[in-house]
């Protein structure tokens, strides 16, 4: 029996499928992964430092650029923290509008995640383009709402920047009709294709205990059968007035993670429909007398988290009574979900490396900030 020698390969930061500029030092024994060491920091822009030099509203633009495929959710998380810090009472219409926007963003984010799974599996772009096409319609809606497609900065302390235009509502109805079909299509691609099933089922299994211990949250945790969704367990905004189902899967493998994402996006459609039913005319944000443009929250600290598309997305803000946060920390779910990367990958084959990595659904903008 000839002895084999492990070989260490550097994958990234320039690599077609590391979802950005991620770098891994991987040791292989043949095709089998022996060791993985992630290397971060290629997209580090110092958002937290920059936030200390900006007013509370200006920091919003930095949050857009963190996780750039779910910027509405970042906005929402940050604005909730600011509202809690400055004791701002939001306007109901503004809250409903931002819930609609963030659920649309969740659908878009899950579409991207699912499309990239099939891309990482080796399909040459077709499923990715199918899901990206659907995402375009959602981005068109954002363009109607705030004029931007990716870096929205739509939310403001107490509500949203401005009311939705008239043509937004019929367009939203059309998208809500289309999206379930797109997910039917994607789900058929995912669960009716023998190759995808045989490659994702039973690969990179994590136990629920180890995931909770490693602070992994979001669809990854729910794919392990842990019923932990902040929208349900700790409802923020008006999620306590909404009925929705939390999809769970208990096999905790790559297939389960993407199955959960698809089902969750379907639930988002239902949530948006309920929001449309409950929204009523009114101001979308408090007047500037109530909530001034230049917020000066009382000294103190606050941690507020929402259920982002990738997991618990939290902001820890410290105020010293000034116009800029004294400290702004982001609990980046993408970064923390990577904690068990090594455990996920060791023992798997090279072909599954990027599939498992992609099933975490991370975004380098959020990992490195």
């Amino acid at each position, binding site marked *: 029996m000839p002895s084999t020698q492990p070989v260490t390969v550097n994958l990234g930061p320039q690599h077609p499928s590391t979802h950005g500029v991620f770098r891994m030092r991987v040791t292989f024994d043949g095709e089998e992964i022996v060791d993985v060491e992630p290397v971060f920091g290629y997209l580090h822009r*110092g958002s937290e430092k920059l936030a200390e030099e900006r007013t509370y509203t200006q920091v919003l633009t930095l949050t857009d650029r963190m996780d750039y495929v779910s910027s509405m959710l970042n906005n929402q998380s940050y604005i909730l923290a600011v509202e809690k810090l400055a004791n701002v009472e939001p306007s109901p219409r503004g809250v409903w509008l931002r819930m609609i926007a963030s659920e649309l963003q969740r659908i878009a984010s899950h579409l991207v995640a699912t499309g990239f799974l099939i891309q990482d599996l080796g399909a040459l772009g077709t499923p990715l383009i199918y899901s990206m096409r659907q995402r375009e319609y959602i981005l068109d809606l954002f363009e109607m709402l705030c004029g931007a497609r990716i870096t929205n900065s739509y939310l403001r302390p107490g509500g949203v920047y401005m009311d939705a235009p008239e043509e937004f509502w019929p367009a939203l109805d059309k998208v809500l009709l289309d999206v379930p079909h797109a997910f039917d299509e994607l789900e058929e691609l995912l669960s009716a294709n023998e190759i995808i099933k045989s490659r994702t089922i039973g690969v990179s299994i994590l136990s629920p205990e180890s995931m909770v*211990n490693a602070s992994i949250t979001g669809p990854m945790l729910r794919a392990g059968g842990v019923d932990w969704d902040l929208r349900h*367990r700790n409802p923020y905004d008006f999620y306590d007035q909404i009925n929705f189902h939390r999809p769970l899967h208990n096999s905790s493998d790559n297939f389960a993670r993407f199955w959960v994402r698809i089902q969750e996006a379907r639930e988002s459609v239902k949530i948006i429909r309920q929001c449309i039913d409950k929204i009523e005319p009114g101001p979308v944000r408090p007047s500037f007398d109530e909530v001034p443009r230049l917020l000066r929250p009382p000294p103190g600290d606050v941690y507020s988290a929402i259920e982002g598309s990738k997991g618990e997305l939290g902001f820890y803000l410290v105020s010293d009574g000034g116009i800029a946060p004294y400290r702004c920390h982001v609990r980046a779910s993408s970064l923390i979900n990577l904690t068990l990367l090594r455990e996920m990958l060791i023992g798997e084959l090279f072909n599954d490396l990027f599939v498992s990595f992609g099933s975490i659904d991370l975004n380098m903008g959020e990992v490195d900030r």
Partner: protein
Amino acid sequence: MTDQWKGIVLGKMLNQILPGCLVSTNKYDVWIKNENLLEVCNVLREKEEFKFDLLNSITAVDYIDYFEVIYHITSLSKNASAVIKTKVGFGRKDPSLSSVVGVWRGADYQEREIWDLLGIKFLSHPNLKRLFLWEGYPGYPLRKDYITYDQSIVTDNK
């Protein structure tokens, strides 16, 4: 709705189990001595009445006189959360703290991030290397006395 532990109650209970670990409490937060941190975290995770199995976030703040490390923890089974704080590095002299990676694995990257950006050393961390910046980067950017490039241009002319 996730229940928020009262800081006073949690502080008293912790002080009963580990006498002398408590520094002060407030409505939401519990300040504990930094030497007792690891024991307190073990108690919070293991004891039946706490069962804090999820570490939401670790972060640190530079308050000029000292550094404060903040632990946001949640118990999934009780759906309750609490905030534990500890002060380290009085006088800005080599702040260090014991690592909680052995208690909550999720602390791994977050402690490395704090070491990278605020320079708080986590003793017995398995792999305490800088996370975002490279080895040999001068200073710790999130400290308040860190001079950025822009500031350095202005201050040099004085």
